[in-house]
């Protein structure tokens, strides 16, 4: 039963107030993309056992999407940030690195 702080409205929302939206920062591939690109966009997921960036919507709150950096093995949360970004912001990267020194990085 996770708690994630919504960066848009500041509420420490519990899981039942949120809806999950899968891996974050996927690049959309539309017409003109190769079969491989499209397949990866649709299906290939990092699915890491460890640091993960994932989308959540504060569905029973302000309705906004945000992204959580979370460990899938311990459920530790490193931080949350608005969804309007193509990559994790630096302060999140730093927060993860502080707590997971061995982390191989976002890319």
């Amino acid at each position, binding site marked *: 039963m996770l*708690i994630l702080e919504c960066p848009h409205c500041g509420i420490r929302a519990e899981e039942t107030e949120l809806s999950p939206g899968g891996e974050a920062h996927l690049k959309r591939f539309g017409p003109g993309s190769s079969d491989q690109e*499209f397949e990866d966009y649709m299906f290939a997921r990092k699915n890491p056992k460890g640091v993960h960036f994932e989308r959540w*919507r504060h569905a029973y709150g302000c309705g906004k999407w945000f992204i959580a950096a979370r460990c899938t093995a311990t459920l530790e949360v490193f931080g949350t940030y608005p969804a309007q970004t193509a990559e994790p912001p630096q302060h999140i990267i730093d927060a993860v690195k502080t707590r997971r020194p061995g982390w191989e990085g976002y890319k």
Partner: protein
Amino acid sequence: MSTRLACGGRLIDRRAPRTFSFNGKKMRGFLGDTLASALLANDQMLVGRSFKYHRPRGIVAAGPEEPNALVGLGTGSRFEPNQRVTTTELFDGLTATSQNHWPSLEFDVGVVNNYAARFLPGGFYYKTFIHPRFAWKHVFEPIIRRSAGLGKAPIDRDADRYEQAYDFADILVIGGGIAGLQAALVAGRSGARVLVLEQTAHWGGRAPVDEVEIDGLTAGEWIDNAVQELEGMENVTLRLRTMGAGVYDHGYVLAEEKIADHSPADGRPRKRLWRIRAAKVIAAQGAIERPLSFAGNDVPGVMLAGSVRDFVVNHAVAPGDRTVVVTNNDDAYRTAILLVEAGLSVPAVLDARPVADGELPRRARAMGIRVETGRAIAAVKGGKRVTGVATCAQAGQGAVLETVACDSVAMSGGWSPVVHLWSHCGGKLIWDEANAHFRPDPDRPPTGQDGQGMVVTAGSASGALTADAVLADATQAAGGGNVPQATVPQEAPVAAIWVMPQGAGPDLRAKMWLDYQNDVKVSDVQLAAREGYTSVEHTKRYTTLGMATDQGKLSNINGLAVLSQALSIDIPQVGTTTFRPPYTPVTIGALAGEARDEIFQPLRRTPIHEWHETHDVEWEPVGLWRRPYCYRHPGETSHQAVMREVSNTRKNVGLLDASTLGKIIVKGPDAGRFLDMLYTNMMSTLPVGKCRYGLMCNEQGFLSDDGVVARIDDETWLCHTTSGGADRIHAWMEDWLQCEWWDWQVFTANVTEQFAQVAVVGPNARKLLEKLGGMDVSKETLPFMQWQDGTLGGFRARVYRISFSGELSYEIAVPANEGRAFWDACVAAGAELGAMPYGTECLHVMRAEKGFIMIGDETDGTVIPQDLNLAWAISKKKADYLGKRGQERAFLASPDRWKLVGLETLDGSVLEDGAYAPGEGRNANGQRNTQGRVTSTYHSPTLGRGIAMGLVLRGPERMGEVIEFTKLDGTLTKAKIVDQVFYDKEGAKQDV
């Protein structure tokens, strides 16, 4: 015999007698008794039969660890099986019945299993009942099922109600013994918000029983003071009868409060499930005493030594007149001393240790109690009740030294911390050699949201077994401070003795019970080890050790120890099984909380819902909505009602409550561009005032929703979705706007519930609206596929000229608060025009007659618009829309897709729902090949025959061809592939 003592009993009120019944026999007890103490006070030693061998069993413990004494409680709609007598508070009129025996508790035929025990070792069923094959299902399994299973199944609907509640705490203390209270005091004084839970109805735990002195006060006085101080703190909340059931991720704790379990039908909820979010959990649940493994350790009358003390001190009940104490530690001497002080006889203390020279043994000896060291029990005498014990040397193989007559045995194998809550979320344990138990490893706690430890233990739950250590540990757990001083006798260490005697042979080991309820013996664990089920999880599952309703509270450590000995490895290497919530079983009704009957699920109601309710409605659930399926006039079947509704709508006029249709406003400078991405067709070019049917696909390309879009003004569109789709599609829009195209200037609003929407459909539709008056709804002013705002019959209305039936049709949206009045006005105005309401099934038939697709019927998540001949609704001009790339994939772009066609049976009958069209031959797996399937099939009253739509391999290229469809009776029906539009192919009727 077990009996009530003449005086004492700190928890009972002798002025408040209570009567109850056990197996129909009337008995008496007092307010403050548990059912266990009351049964013992009535000399009811035999209380149940075990799971497998149906051995007679009595009360062993005094708390939630009790494995044997489970009864059926109450009757009828308040009957509950498997209630633990040790945690059941006595009340007037309580009715209890024992379980798992036939024909009676005293004489149980199932006990034959006991005599065949030798042939039924752990895991025996894996090795037999294999042949003949049918025998397992028809003979052996039914026998096993009937003989297992503990209590009877309830039959009636539960008469009680339940509820849930949320709470929040900085510090949640679970356990209200002296550790919990001290931790709460320290935390409370610091100003933190503290919540304290205690599973019983009393504060203080075991300390008063063990006659602890704290800061010069008796335990009872200290506890009273502590509770009083805590009650005076605004930041502290205390809850009795509330069991901490489970610790979950991020500090989520589940607890079950018994509100009216001891006062049934008093109008209050029976139980309340607490969902608590705590920044830090202090688990102070104490420790549980372990049994010792000796032959006959399950005979009624053999009890835990600490529990014997509980009954004597708390309830003034003595389980026996002559009690032999058997132990591997000093603590059990307290029981011997207490019993003698109470005027009862203790013929001997059998101490398995070679030496017993601690303060308590010395005190016992000084009182004249006979203490024998290096001794063990070779066998317990007696069947349904202890009559004596045969003693032997612990070091030997069980040669009997003497027989001691007694009517109860108090045993103690040492104490194990309650580590459940620590472990639920991954807290790790270490083996404490000195105390011979697993305890929490403070360096490896369960971690929370921030990655830091979120649970600490306090007191005995940490492994501190004496009052002074308990208080020191509890103080530390809550942040530190002054430690109250407890006066305690010095105790010598426990000896890690698990099996007595040490060299017991197979005969004895097969009578030493580890898991009482599941009848798992020492010999079973040893067999599992011998057969290679050496992982502790394998042993558990192979023997069922620890899987009974007490979840191994008594048996686990002893089982591990036996396994480690059998494998010749250390206990820590064996490890423990995973602790799973709940700590003790939680009522399923409480887990569902308030959600039953009327409020089981939200039922969404349209503004016109009540009208339907009073007009012969037959409902259909559509998502959480309920829509009229049809309106059944007296004497009609549902089918007849639907046929009448279709005919009437086609002939006169029909009224449909379309309020559930999704309505989403999309506005902004980029709204047109956005809708062009969302829909397969072009929406940006839709002129203001006009409507256009649109399709939405997911990124895979599969059709996900459809509906009519209206252009409201230059920057504003209104998108209709399916009834089930409104929230989903609104969320879908916001997803793309927030997460992909966040720089586009578009705002959305879901206004589905702002409006009631009524469809007025049929040749008389215009006349009906004209009767209402207020707006020009003529073909010229309001042509097909346009909309207009205005007033109808005095109502503010937005009128759409759209049709899902092929008839002249208006959909009228009015503010929801006026919806019912508007509907009534339509009904009244329509009376002389033959207006009748119609339901969803009529809607389906009419749309099928027109060949319109229905999301969920023609689509199933694998269908693309191209399959449905909807290519006209897919813009060729657009470079991109959601789903376009997906539709270009090989399998979806193949010409060999199944495509939509109409189907007409040759004999006019109705094709069966879900029927398939078999193709030629069989596939590599021997399955019949198929070439199509029915997606919608109805009897059309308009055409007087069956009509259907279906997806058929290259269907549109095969017009006129006759293919066959399956029927459930195994035969086939012939049907011709035809155009999917069966009614008014030119569309003349809707455009008048």
